[in-house]
């Protein structure tokens, strides 16, 4: 297979001699810190940056015996749905090299789909693990907020993001989640959950008596072939003994807007640290403080990153804060409440992962609104802090379609179980 540009840096980091991941190769998204190995976030800003410490998830991979084979390509700072905003060139979809692999963890998903790594770590702020998993025809899990440590993850939007596994099968993804999950003193938002996880054991395909909620709002406007493929997968679950019921989540109509207000606001604060003084690209120190920072940041950041920093700065600025940021937090609480109500009646909630088939390279990159709207089905999950998995449901027009299964908080076993039945 031709090179799909899955990696920014190809370098081997050996783990312990034995452990549950001994003999397993792992691609690690390039916003996850690796001590002594360049970590760029797909940005010119961090080209050449070598972290002095490992992210907790990297330490856990090494302790489990995994071999890291490289740092995977990504949309710059995780900001994109196609991996085309990377400073190091786009990743191609191994299924169809004229199409995007999805994003922002496109390199991670492409590496697994192309057989360049057994499994991979991505990060998911608004769908960035599930989208590329769906587009590349592999499995991706966005864990419950607080299940996996974010220590050493270079922040984009702290309140939304989690590190998550990508693999060829549900069981392999769950086994990787078993290794990285659990509390970490370095991340105060982690919880006790996941300390002795055995999510892999839940991949038993037993959905007898399981109730699957189907959300009409998350099928509206989706590509016809996507809808048909997902509905066929749900019929197959019914044939295996699951019951499907319709559940309405009216709040999700506002999820994309709320997500982009919150994510860009957090990004505008997080990315303020990149000033070229302590690390990262520097335009030199000729002018005064303000001029120098503005020039450094102009050279170091790409267009999408600048767009989001500016939108977030705007949304947080005095006079607009109540209008955008406060209302987005209301919407977030509404989405959370809607899901809580739904999970009183159902075990998992199903939808297409992506409402569209993989874009052609260059198709939508100049139209930010089109790109943002593609995140309609994934962003509600991050707003509600819930776990979700994308599992291949079949193909439409020869391209992969992902089924998303959302669980209640810390309900990883349930979504792994349901997804494993989809594979059968």
């Amino acid at each position, binding site marked *: 297979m031709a090179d799909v540009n899955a990696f920014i840096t190809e370098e081997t980091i050996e783990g312990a001699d034995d452990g549950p991941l001994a003999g397993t190769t792992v691609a690690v998204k390039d916003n996850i810190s690796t001590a002594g190995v360049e970590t760029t976030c797909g940005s010119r800003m961090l080209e050449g*940056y*070598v972290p*002095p*410490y490992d992210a907790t998830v990297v330490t856990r991979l090494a302790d489990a015996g995994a071999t890291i084979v490289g740092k995977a390509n990504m949309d710059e700072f995780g900001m994109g749905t196609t991996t085309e905003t990377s400073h190091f060139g786009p990743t191609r979809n191994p299924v169809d090299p004229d199409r995007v692999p999805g994003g922002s963890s496109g390199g991670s998903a492409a590496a697994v789909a192309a057989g360049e790594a057994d499994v991979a770590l991505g990060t998911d702020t608004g769908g960035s693990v599930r989208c590329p998993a769906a587009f590349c025809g592999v499995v991706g899990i966005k864990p419950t907020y607080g299940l996996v440590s974010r220590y050493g993850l270079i*922040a984009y939007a702290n309140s939304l993001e989690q590190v998550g596994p990508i693999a060829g099968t549900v069981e392999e993804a769950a086994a990787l989640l078993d290794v990285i999950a659990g509390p970490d003193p370095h991340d*105060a*938002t982690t919880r006790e959950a996941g300390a002795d996880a055995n999510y892999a054991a839940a991949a038993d395909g037993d959905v007898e008596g399981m109730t699957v909620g189907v959300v009409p709002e998350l099928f509206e406007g989706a590509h016809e072939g996507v809808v048909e493929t997902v509905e066929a997968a749900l019929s197959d679950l019914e044939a295996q003994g699951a019951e499907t019921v319709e559940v309405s989540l009216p*709040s999700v109509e*506002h999820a994309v*807007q*709320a997500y*982009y*207000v919150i994510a860009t606001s957090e990004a*505008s*604060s*997080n990315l*303020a*640290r990149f*000033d*070229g*003084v*302590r*690390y990262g690209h*520097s335009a030199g*120190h000729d*002018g*005064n*403080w*303000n001029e*120098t*920072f*503005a020039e450094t*940041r*102009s050279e170091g*950041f790409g*267009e999408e990153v*600048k*767009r989001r*920093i*500016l*939108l977030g*700065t*705007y*949304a947080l*600025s*005095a*006079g*607009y804060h109540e*209008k*955008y940021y406060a*209302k*987005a*937090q*209301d*919407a977030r*609480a*509404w989405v959370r*409440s809607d899901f809580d109500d739904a999970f009183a009646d159902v075990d998992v909630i199903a939808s297409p992962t992506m409402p569209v088939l993989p874009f052609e390279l260059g198709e939508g990159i100049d139209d*930010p*609104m089109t790109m943002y709207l593609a995140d309609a089905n994934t962003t509600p999950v991050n707003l509600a802090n819930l776990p979700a998995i994308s599992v291949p449901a079949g193909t439409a027009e020869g391209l992969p379609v992902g089924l998303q299964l959302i669980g209640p908080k810390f309900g990883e076993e349930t979504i792994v179980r349901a997804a494993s039945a989809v594979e059968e």
Partner: protein
Amino acid sequence: MSDSPDERSEAAADAADTVDAAEAADATDVDVEDVDHVAGLARVDLEAAEREAFPEQFAEILEYFETLDEVPEFDREAELVNVMRPDEVREGLTQSEALRNAAETEDGYFRGPRVS
């Protein structure tokens, strides 16, 4: 990587200047001066092509954000609790590790641009 509190409070103080702009303008009517103003607050110079594209894009995106007006008020803080730990000395980065990625250093310190 930690945030610099100084930078953030400075940005917040500058942001307070925009109150009048918020009251005066329709939020979905974005011109290049608005974009330049926010770029100044964020300390990001823009390329010519970005200055040209952003006003229209921002207008479209902000108009979409406006639909948040339909969202009802919600009690949002109910389930938050503080997580505290004892304030104990721990091992951290050495000075050379901390300085390793800096563009310029001097006598074991970061060297930055002049502040005025």
